């Protein structure tokens, strides 16, 4: 057993493993970069860097001439696999097995910094939220939405009454992780207080809804003369409009629905007594796909958006937003500008972009929003790594210069 552990430790901490991991990471990064031309950033992130393995199709090896291609499909360990192995290798080889003396202080400090940096990355992957919120002047929001993640939302709007003078909204949310893998075989979804059942199938990452016709065939069943048409991935994955085929039953009149991310209005089903095919009365529920929402612990209101261009050009020189953070009765004014984000309660709001809404023509300011517990860790890791490398290479350089001087002195004498 001891032998096995020793062997395992030796292998995990070996230079051979370090070199292999670094080379595989090099290849993965290179191919993951090239592949972005075809698939866009988000898809590549998921398939190359947030995965266990990937098979690289033969592609031209840019920037070599286009006829120089990878000759065969190349299996590569994915980002998760490599980062896991690198962490082990770094820990075992760079922190445990390494000789600890004055000559290796710099290397050890560097490795500690690297370990800290990788921990920051892990925390970001495991426990962070990111998205955006776009506001026109005077508008406020208590939530932001994801760029890429979608949820299926079933909601019931209740009319105002004595208890809820503004009405109430009940929501049942099915996160995309529960339907991303769906193809022909439907999956059933129920909830204790939801008075009907839902079956989902035929998930499409990017799609459009078109009238059925002889010129094309949908992989999903059509509904009321319409069907879902899958579309290729876009460079900008945030523009993807996913779709699902759905069937509701058991509590409502059974019916099939097409749920599409680009729909302006939800699909509506009504519960209640049924008389043949006619719904007599009941509660109305809306169903739709929408980008995942995350709550702020406060509200944010855009007071003023300001944009300037370099004189005589159309290049933005500056854009900034004056916002008010509203928390109960407390209001605090904050300015958010390029490279100067707002940091509050673990949330960071960045000035991302601006534009004009197609719906009402109003100018809006868009903020990227992130909640990341390891937000500033990479900065500290950078300091540690920098210091470590300075010590390590400084020691070597000093020693080398001393030996050179000694040799020259010897030769001179």
């Amino acid at each position: 057993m001891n032998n096995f552990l020793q062997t395992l430790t030796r292998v995990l901490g070996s230079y051979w493993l370090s070199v292999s991991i670094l080379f595989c990471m090099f290849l993965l990064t290179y191919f993951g970069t090239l592949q972005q031309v075809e698939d866009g950033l988000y898809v590549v992130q998921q398939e190359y860097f947030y995965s266990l393995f990937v098979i690289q199709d033969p592609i031209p090896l840019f920037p070599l001439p286009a006829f120089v291609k990878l000759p065969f499909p190349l299996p590569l360990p994915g980002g998760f696999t490599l980062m896991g192995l690198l962490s082990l290798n770094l820990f075992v080889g760079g922190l445990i097995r390494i000789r600890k003396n004055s000559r290796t202080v710099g290397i050890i400090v560097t490795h500690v910094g690297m370990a800290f940096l990788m921990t920051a990355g892990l925390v970001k992957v495991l426990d962070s939220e990111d998205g955006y919120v776009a506001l026109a002047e005077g508008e406020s929001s208590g939530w932001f939405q994801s760029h890429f993640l979608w949820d299926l939302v079933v909601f019931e709007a209740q009319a105002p009454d004595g208890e809820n003078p503004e009405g109430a909204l009940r929501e049942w949310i099915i996160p995309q992780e529960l339907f991303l893998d769906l193809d022909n075989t439907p999956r059933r979804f129920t909830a204790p207080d939801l008075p009907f059942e839902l079956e989902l199938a035929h998930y499409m990452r990017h799609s459009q809804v078109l009238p059925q016709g002889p010129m094309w065939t949908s992989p999903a069943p059509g509904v009321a003369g319409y069907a879902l048409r899958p579309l290729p991935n876009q460079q900008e994955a945030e523009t993807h409009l996913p779709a699902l085929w759905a069937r509701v039953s058991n509590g409502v009149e059974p019916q099939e629905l097409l749920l599409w991310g680009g729909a302006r209005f939800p699909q509506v089903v009504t519960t209640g007594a049924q008389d043949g095919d006619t719904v007599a009365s009941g509660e109305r529920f809306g169903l739709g796909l929408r980008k995942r929402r995350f709550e702020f612990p406060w509200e944010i209101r855009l007071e003023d958006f300001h944009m300037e261009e370099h004189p005589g050009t159309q290049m933005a020189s500056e854009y900034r937003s004056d916002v008010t953070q509203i928390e109960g009765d407390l209001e605090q004014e904050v300015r958010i500008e390029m490279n100067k984000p707002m940091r509050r309660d673990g949330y960071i709001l960045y000035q991302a972009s601006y534009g004009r809404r197609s719906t009402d023509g109003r100018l809006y300011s868009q903020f990227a929003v992130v909640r990341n517990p390891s937000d500033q860790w990479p900065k500290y890791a950078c300091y540690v790594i920098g210091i470590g490398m300075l010590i390590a290479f400084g020691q070597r350089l000093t020693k080398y210069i001393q030996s050179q001087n000694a040799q020259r002195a010897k030769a001179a004498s």
Partner: protein
Amino acid sequence: MQTVNRILFLVALLAAWPATALGLQTPEFPEPTQRIEPYPAELLRAAAEIPVQQGGRVKPLGTAADFTLMRLNSRRKVEVGHGLGAGGKDKLTSLEFMLDTWLFPEQARRYRVFYVRDKEILEATGLDFPGRKRTERFSYEELAPGRLQLMEMAQSASEKEGKDRSTRESQILGLASNMREFEDLFLSMEFMRVNLPLQASPKLAAAFPEVRPGVSALIEGGDGLREIAMAMGSSPNPDPAEMEAFATLDNVMVGIKEFGSFGLSIFPPPETVEVRDEWRTVDEVIDEELVEGGLRGAGLDLIRAFEELEATKTDMGALTTSMVALRDLSSQRAGARGEFEKIPLEVSFYRANYFMNALVLFLAAFLFAAISWLAPQRDWLQAPVWIFGVAGLGFLVTGIVMRCILRDRPPVSTLYETILFIAAVKVAVAMATEFIQRKRFALHAGVLLGAGYMFLSNKYELREAVTSGDTMPQLVAVLDTNFWLATHVTTVTMGYAAGLLAAALAHVWLIGQMLGIGRSNKDFYRFVQRAIYGVLCFGLLFAVVGTILGGVWANDSWGRFWGWDPKENGALLICLWMLMILHARLGGYIKQFGLAWLALLTGPVVAFSWWGVNLMGVGLHSYGFTDGVLGVLRSYIVIEVVFAWLALAWFLLLGPGGPAQRTAAKA
């Protein structure tokens, strides 16, 4: 729409130059005058310092002229003969060329300034130039007969996406754009020489009693003009002759303003920068001056100063006085807005030609280095290598520092500046290595690299002239942060420089070994190895710190530390590659050949990160315009990859890794 109007207008106008078309009355222009003597140096000094606003910044006219000529001509000078250049030379500087387009346009139209890479595109316009080379320079006068056809072809080409255009279509677009730019140069200045029909009717004559028929006179008599217009508007039976005279004047002014709207923004506003940061072109000045209470004469005196240039152009002494007066007036206006203080510095920066001087000095240093190879035992031959090398580095660093002062920026904020900075770092690190080792190869490689990079920067400056019209452009909002430019960009660029230097030193080892040069001198090759290793360590430090700092900046700008964007990946590739080499060396998996061979490939890895990812057309870091760079990058990488394979073949068949050596080692 404005562009379409302008093209139509110019097409019609040039077809019957100098008569105007489109229903406009023909304005009167003085008889063409030829310049027969060089401009005096004092005049050129004054002209160079006239401030203009272009590309979002205020710059000297000299700089604007430099980049204009580079765009048209792919050179900074134009050959015209007749000793018209300063000091009686046959070549004109860019400023002399620009002044000729202003003051002697008929002459300038005969200068061969249009660089045509393949004259086949001219044949497509119906022009034939038998006996002229395939790649040639042509004058406007030579190209004008095919202009209409060229513009139609350019219109078709412009309707395609850039990536779908053929080389020929790109060349057509470029030439058409250059012709329009040239036309703008002289047509936009028509305001200073036009003879307006200000006495064409009794009422006009009464409003403009002076004989002077220029635009300034029109502005001065603006009140009278308004009265005439109002009187005609309110009169039930206006005098047809007066109406026609007024319409004629109006039509001529429409043309003058139309031309002027495409000219330089050369009129500093009287308002403060906070109130108005955009300078005016002549059409805006005329419009605002003619509005009662508009600029209150703030543009009028400058228009007068320009008219004075035209009036005195046949007498170089008087013209010099006029030019100095114009410069003084213009600089005073710009100075009042705090926009002139760096103009003289920029003029002296370009006049000093730091980077060209650095190129010459590095070449001289390398020449002495090459001579020293013939007599290696003569140590004194190293002295001139050091002297010229250090002088070259001095010029290079001074030029970089001057740019920092002019821009209020750290040394690197554009792709062009990365070339300069990398050159400086490479030469400095090579010299430091030489200082430690004193084996000559680092110094010799350093000065050769310095010369190569200065040559590259010169070529890229021409490209910048075409694409952005300046090497000191304004930055997009996200880059407008000196802290991150000074930290992330500078450090990561030092990482690039070290990687490229390590690759260059690897060439020394590999070529020397492959050709058997001084193979017995093991000491020498050991020192080269140490230099490669040291430079790689230096590079890794800066590449890693720079890359992480980039992530920290991205976290402050875009809300994420790492997004796997191509530029970020490029930087990571350099770090991974260098880490792999150093770990492989530490583990004993590579020896001398392996270190040199992998260091050699660091060059292509850095080149991919530095330029390649910008050419992919994806990602957030699309700041640098790199059209046309792909060919150079591809050639470099192909050469290096082929060389690496050759080196590997040599090693495995003939070198230390070959069968003969292995057998010998076993025995």
